[in-house]
């Protein structure tokens, strides 16, 4: 895999920021888009645009084929058994909220338990918090080890027969740990609970097979994997989705509408009320083609190598604190430099053309756990190189001098 050549396929990366070649290291927030995706969306609007599932005319068929074709690509990409199990959403947040709202109330009642972890992104924490408040259920947290990883023994202790839902991110957007979601799904199932996996940070970076994980629900965002913003996916096992009632009502999702009651379309459309995000889905399909043309295993190996290179180089900077396990499997590193506030670090890095994230990363409970009010994060993708990391390290040394 040649990242320098791949870079050329991302038009946005070919620019200078503050007089320096842009080094984009904020991929865990959102990824950049390759020409293939931009062109696919353009082609859709120039050639296929129409509403789906209703037009008799030719454009209606083209748009429907494009939209449903994207669903088939997603199903294959994450190893789903059936395209009916792929529901398009706005992103991971709306996918997780859909589970909490449409599945949650029928599965959870007072005295039951919902189990999550302190490393969850707010989007996989607040929906469960709200469900617990509404139903009188107890929200429990699987404890984390000092370096942030989770021991299965702790999951065994926390998940009980009273647990109805276990929800967890596959990859933490701050700690860079890969959680043992397959093993935890088995523990959940043994106790009669369902397993919900937040795949926002895993799907863009590694091969996913939802049947192998045996998770019951899996959420992902398109924009973190080279697709446009505003498109995401909820995967759910068919039997669970079939038993769930829709939460959005309107056009597109109905079978028969009477004056006093109505019936719903079959899966997956009953959860896709209103005109869907057609161009976004087309862009997601193109992004999947692009990623598969490189190979998810090659992407994962490249990022792991970059992350460990970054960990080694960053560890050599005096006064730099690294968060999360030392050995990396995924491409992100979170750190603080001396007592310089991460906003100041990010501003100085930006003046050298290096884009990183600074703040709480939508993980306030995890920041408290880390005893840091904020952190800086560099996150990598297929187009990043060791040279990019060298630029980050140079920038950090400049930051130290500036604030020293």
């Amino acid at each position: 895999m040649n990242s320098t050549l791949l870079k050329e396929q991302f038009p946005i990366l070919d620019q200078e920021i503050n007089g320096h070649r842009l080094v984009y290291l904020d991929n865990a927030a959102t990824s950049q888009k390759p020409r293939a995706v931009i062109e696919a969306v353009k082609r859709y609007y120039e050639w296929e645009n129409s509403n789906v599932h209703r037009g008799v005319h030719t454009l209606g068929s083209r748009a429907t084929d494009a939209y449903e074709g994207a669903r088939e690509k997603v199903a294959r990409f994450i190893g789903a058994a059936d395209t009916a199990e792929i529901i398009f959403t706005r992103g991971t947040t709306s996918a997780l909220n859909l589970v909490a709202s449409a599945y949650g109330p029928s599965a959870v009642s007072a005295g039951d338990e919902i189990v999550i972890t302190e490393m969850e992104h707010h989007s996989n924490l607040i929906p469960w918090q709200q469900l617990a408040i509404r139903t009188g259920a107890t929200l429990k947290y699987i404890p984390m080890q000092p370096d942030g990883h989770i021991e299965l023994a702790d999951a065994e202790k926390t998940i009980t027969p009273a647990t109805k839902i276990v929800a967890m991110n596959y990859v933490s957007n701050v700690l860079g740990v890969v959680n043992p979601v397959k093993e935890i799904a088995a523990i959940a199932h043994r106790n009669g609970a369902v397993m919900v996996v937040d795949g926002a940070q895993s799907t863009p970076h590694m091969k996913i097979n939802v049947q192998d994980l045996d998770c019951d629900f899996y959420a992902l965002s398109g924009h973190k994997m080279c697709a446009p913003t505003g498109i995401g996916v909820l995967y759910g096992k068919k039997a669970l989705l079939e038993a769930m009632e829709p939460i959005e009502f309107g056009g597109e999702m109905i079978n028969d509408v009477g004056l006093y009651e109505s019936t719903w379309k079959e899966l997956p459309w009953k959860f896709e009320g209103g005109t869907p995000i057609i161009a976004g889905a087309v862009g997601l399909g193109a992004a999947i083609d692009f990623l598969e043309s490189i190979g998810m295993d090659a992407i994962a190996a490249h990022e792991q190598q970059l992350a460990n290179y970054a960990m080694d180089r960053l560890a050599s900077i005096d006064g730099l604190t690294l968060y999360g396990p030392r050995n990396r499997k995924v491409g992100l590193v979170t750190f603080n430099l001396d007592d310089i506030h991460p906003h100041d670090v990010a501003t100085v890095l930006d003046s050298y053309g290096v884009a990183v994230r600074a703040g709480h990363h939508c993980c306030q409970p995890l920041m408290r756990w880390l005893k840091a009010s904020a952190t800086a994060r560099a996150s990598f993708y297929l187009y990043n190189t060791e040279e990019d990391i060298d630029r980050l390290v140079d920038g950090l040394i400049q930051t130290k001098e500036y604030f020293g």
Partner: protein
Amino acid sequence: MQLDDLYRRVIMDHYKNPRNRGTFGDDAVTVNLNNPTCGDRISLQLIVENGIVKDARYTGEGCSISMSSASMMTDAVKGKTVQEALELADRFSTMMKGGEAQFDDYEDIEALSGVSKFPARIKCATLAWNALKKGIE
């Protein structure tokens, strides 16, 4: 983009040697404000007597811009009438929008004028001033 436009010596001095950092007792007016997008937080305490801000102190955590701004603001409002303090806050807001603003009575504040060129950092500089306005209200 010139980093020195943002981080002037005066700002770094207030950041490294903060003025008025600390707390009064419970009888002071206390405002807790945070910036949810970045996690900066300030706890501002004001002692107001007969319409005059007698004293001001703050604690909190945040970047050099938010903390130096708090240091300057607490220094600047001391001895001012409530009306004058609000007028200062308005002038600061004008400066953050890139407008002309002078602070003859406390020139250090003008060092923050460069923040207006860094849109992502304006909310850092205004946190303490928003706390002031809330405290006076």
